[in-house]
């Protein structure tokens, strides 16, 4: 459709909103209520502009203007809100006329009359849409001489979000966000007219994606409590990076100041996370700024760890290594290590002639699918079968499934990016819940949105999948048929399936039989990448659990803490060399000969591959990590001590290596990443428990760092032991009790949360990197109550 904006003529797709036409033409109108990926509602009335269009006569010809001989433009009597106006053939939009300017200026003035203008104390100051627009479109002074509306300031909506009701300009973005994006309607307007404010009756905003409202709030009404007053927006160094918290590869912006990470915000990746991130990713950064981080290498001297230089530490290691024969050294990386770290570890292993190299946690089967689904496949799928706790494993999968339920395809990008007002989106759109089927061993969040959901007994994944493949039950048959019938079907497989090689195989068969694409949820951020780069043991006996139980004489572990298990700790004592590369002192560093300072995921430079097989850059935020290095740095230092220039001694060196094998220059990846095909690695089977009274479940919040993330800790109440109320009663536990307990040899500190959603006879607790998802035996006799829940008087 031809549209004219001021003096620019454009040809745009029908259905485009007038505001997008204006931006596409390179002009500007102010707006507050519109937001990318959300419905336009025309509430703020800022984007008013003079709009006109030609009319057709009865016979279909244009009504002509006699004077000019051109179709006559009939202007609307009032300026129109361009965000809710769809373009028409021949439409004329005038954003520069005096009428437009007066309308916009008048609206700006009204936005400001009740706004406290406390920009100096407001965290949004300097990055505030209202502030910017007031400069651009405001008159500079107010004619409103009356008292401004007074309302509650710094009201804690939850432990993570602070609300300042005076600053709110009622754009309704947050309220709409909860309804439209995650679908949890936990925030709403209360009262009406000039007294309207936002509020909630539910305590603590029970949603897994609540933090996004702090990003989209156009003023400082909704603020991230973790970063409250930590710095001003112009003082932060903004680093665009990729989150290493889960396998989604969500884009984040790391805001750091004076060497400290203060805030994580969502960054735009149209292909992956759009504008959103989950709460675990957003608020789980405080650990990186903990004061107890290991900042220098440490060497055990006379039984005590003492700070030393890198040279001294690596010299010590190299001396020890020289005494080892082939295949005696084990190297283990945590699965969120970057691709470059993986390459470095592999090259080190090759140099030291050891096949004992592994990444952990990983599953018994591959996370690389033969017919992988991308996020956009998921968001446009006609049938989705989820066999996972997707919300906790990779929260972004949950969010993109909700896109599919809406049935609106991702918008086409325009000259100015994502359309500001996508007129296809509406408030309170119906959700096609019948396309979603969810199966899990306990009630998972996504089941709320699924027409078909199934809670099966723990460990019966194989039977469940057989029922579907054989169509032996009505539900199984219906599901198989719907997957086959749908034009685009996606099967999402999580830890419970991938942990069993047999179930995994069946799931692949199901995918083949139905023509569905498969999305496998990797255990950690780079599970896909490390597997594709074969950071895997040369043979099954060399897997990480075996290294711990004696296959290795010396061990280099990065980011893992195996000694939490008392039995393993005993075995580690026998090692000739134990090198631990980690952020914090823990049970394993207490046994280590050498402790090396590691970088957190926010400080690393590198590449990760998300669950789609998408290569994404991780960029380092300027953070004071002391002498911390990532694994490539360790390889360099060790190489120096060994007088060798090892491959993978730096990110650049690793990338040179990867460029050859991948034919992909990882230093020049586009912002949204690149999907490259990958083959499944030779995943040597890991033994998994098939019995137990407790189930380790995935958690979007990093359980290992939870006690260092003060705000998240307060919000979640700590790592939870969830069990059925009847079980709780029989074990003499009540809600909010804090207990310490031995779980499969791991000493865990947990807070008790009875919940109807847990099947009777099963206890759920969050997995750790060293104690990944699966069944485990919880020693009921070892339960010790540290803190008994206070009775409400």
């Amino acid at each position: 459709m031809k549209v004219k904006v001021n003096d620019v003529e454009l040809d745009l797709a029908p259905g485009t909103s007038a505001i997008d036409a204006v931006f596409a033409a390179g002009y500007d109108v102010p707006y507050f209520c519109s937001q990318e990926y959300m419905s336009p509602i025309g509430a703020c009335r800022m984007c008013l502009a003079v709009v006109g269009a030609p009319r057709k006569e009865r016979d279909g010809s244009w009504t002509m203007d006699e004077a000019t001989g051109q179709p006559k433009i009939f202007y609307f009597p009032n300026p129109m809100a361009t965000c809710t106006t769809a373009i028409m053939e021949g439409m004329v939009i005038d954003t520069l006329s005096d009428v437009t300017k007066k309308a916009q200026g008048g609206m700006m003035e009204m936005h400001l009359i009740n706004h406290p203008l406390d920009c100096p104390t407001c965290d949004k100051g300097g990055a505030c849409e209202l502030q910017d627009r007031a400069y651009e479109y405001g008159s500079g002074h107010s004619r409103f001489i009356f008292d401004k509306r007074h309302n509650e300031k710094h009201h804690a909506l939850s432990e993570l979000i602070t609300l300042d009701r005076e600053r709110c300009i009622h754009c309704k973005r947050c309220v709409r966000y909860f309804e439209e994006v995650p679908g949890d309607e936990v925030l709403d307007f209360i009262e009406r007219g000039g007294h309207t404010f936002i509020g909630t009756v539910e305590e603590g905003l029970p949603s897994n994606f609540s933090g996004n409202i702090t990003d989209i709030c156009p003023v400082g009404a909704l603020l991230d409590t973790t970063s409250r007053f930590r710095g001003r927006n112009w003082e932060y160094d903004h680093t665009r990076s990729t989150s290493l918290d889960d396998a989604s590869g969500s884009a984040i912006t790391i805001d750091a100041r004076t060497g400290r990470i203060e805030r994580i915000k969502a960054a735009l990746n149209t292909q992956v996370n759009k504008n959103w991130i989950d709460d675990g990713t957003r608020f789980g950064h405080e650990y990186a700024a903990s004061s107890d981080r290991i900042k220098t290498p440490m060497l055990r001297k006379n039984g005590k760890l003492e700070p030393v230089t890198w040279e001294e530490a690596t010299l010590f290691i190299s001396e020890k290594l020289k005494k080892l024969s082939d295949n005696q050294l084990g190297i283990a990386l945590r699965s969120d290590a970057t691709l470059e770290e993986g390459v470095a570890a592999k090259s080190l292993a090759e140099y030291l002639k050891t096949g004992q190299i592994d990444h952990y946690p990983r599953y018994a089967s591959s996370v690389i699918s033969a017919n992988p689904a991308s996020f956009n496949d998921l968001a446009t799928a006609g049938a989705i079968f989820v066999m996972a706790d997707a919300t906790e494993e990779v929260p972004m999968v949950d969010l993109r499934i909700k896109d599919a339920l809406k049935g609106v395809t991702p918008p086409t990008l325009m000259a100015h990016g994502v359309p500001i007002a996508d007129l296809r989106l509406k408030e309170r759109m119906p959700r096609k819940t019948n396309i979603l089927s969810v199966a899990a061993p306990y009630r998972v969040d996504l089941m709320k949105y699924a027409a078909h959901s199934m809670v099966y007994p723990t460990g019966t994944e194989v039977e469940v999948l057989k029922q579907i493949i054989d169509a032996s039950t009505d539900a199984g048959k219906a599901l198989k048929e719907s997957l086959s019938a749908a034009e685009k079907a996606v099967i999402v497989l999580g830890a419970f399936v991938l942990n069993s090689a047999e179930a995994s195989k069946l799931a692949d068969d199901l995918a083949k039989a139905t023509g569905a694409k498969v999305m496998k949820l990797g255990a950690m951020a780079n599970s896909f990448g490390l597997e594709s780069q074969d950071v895997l043991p040369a043979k099954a006996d060399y897997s990480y659990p075996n290294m711990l139980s004696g296959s290795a004489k010396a061990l280099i572990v990065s980011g893992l803490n195996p000694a939490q298990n008392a039995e393993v700790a005993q075995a580690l004592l026998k090692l000739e060399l134990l090198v631990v590369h980690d952020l914090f002192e823990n049970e394993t560093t207490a046994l280590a000969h050498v402790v090396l300072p590691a970088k957190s995921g926010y400080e690393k430079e590198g590449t990760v591959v998300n669950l789609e097989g998408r290569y994404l850059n991780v960029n380092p935020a300027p953070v004071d990590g002391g002498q911390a290095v990532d694994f490539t740095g360790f390889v360099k230092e060790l190489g120096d001590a060994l007088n060798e220039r090892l491959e993978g001694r730096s990110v650049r060196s690793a990338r040179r290596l990867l460029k050859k094998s991948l034919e992909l220059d990882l230093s020049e990846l586009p912002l949204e990443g690149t999907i490259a095909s990958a083959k499944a690695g030779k995943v040597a089977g890991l033994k998994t428990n098939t019995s137990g009274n407790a189930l380790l479940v995935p958690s979007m919040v990093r359980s290992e760092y939870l006690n260092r993330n003060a705000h998240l800790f307060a919000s979640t109440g700590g790592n939870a032991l969830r069990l059925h109320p009847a079980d709780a009663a029989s074990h003499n536990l009540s809600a909010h009790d804090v207990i310490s307990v031995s779980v499969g040899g791991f000493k865990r500190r947990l807070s008790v949360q009875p919940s109807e959603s847990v099947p009777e006879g099963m206890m759920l607790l969050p997995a750790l990197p060293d104690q990944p998802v699966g069944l485990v035996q919880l020693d009921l006799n070892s339960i010790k109550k540290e803190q008994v829940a206070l009775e409400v008087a």
Partner: protein
Amino acid sequence: MSVFEIAKGMGVTLGHLFKKPVTVTYPEQPVDVKPRFRGRHHLLRHPDTNLEKCIGCSLCAAACPAYAIYVEAAENDPNNPTSAGERYASIYEINMLRCIFCGFCEEACPTGAIVLGHEFELADFKYQDFVYGKPDMLVGTKGSKWQRREAEKKGKDVKIGLKSGPRPELEGVDY
């Protein structure tokens, strides 16, 4: 040149012989400072509530052309507030070696919390002694770090070498 003109010149010279000398025997004698002189900064308090005026907004730091100011803010304890409102400066530092005494910070301050005073005797020995924190600048603190150290050593009051009434902006500052 005539004798008359020489005599006229000598007259000027002679005239000055009998005028009061402008030289001040500083530091024995205090010097006079012009009202608009910009010396060491003061952090002011609200005179009635005694709360700090500074809200830790960091605008002074943003305005500072020499990057001499560092501010870190925190939330007030509502029961025992440091400043009015919800935010206060938990750390407020000015590096006097970097400072060029341009007064931009004073202009940028939305609450009138920071005002450049008249104190100019800032000489000291160590670099870190030139980083003035909140206790060194809050109203009621007289003299530079060195002067206060010296006074403490001698058990005397801080003596600053200037005499002049403060500017009206310097609320509560006493010279």
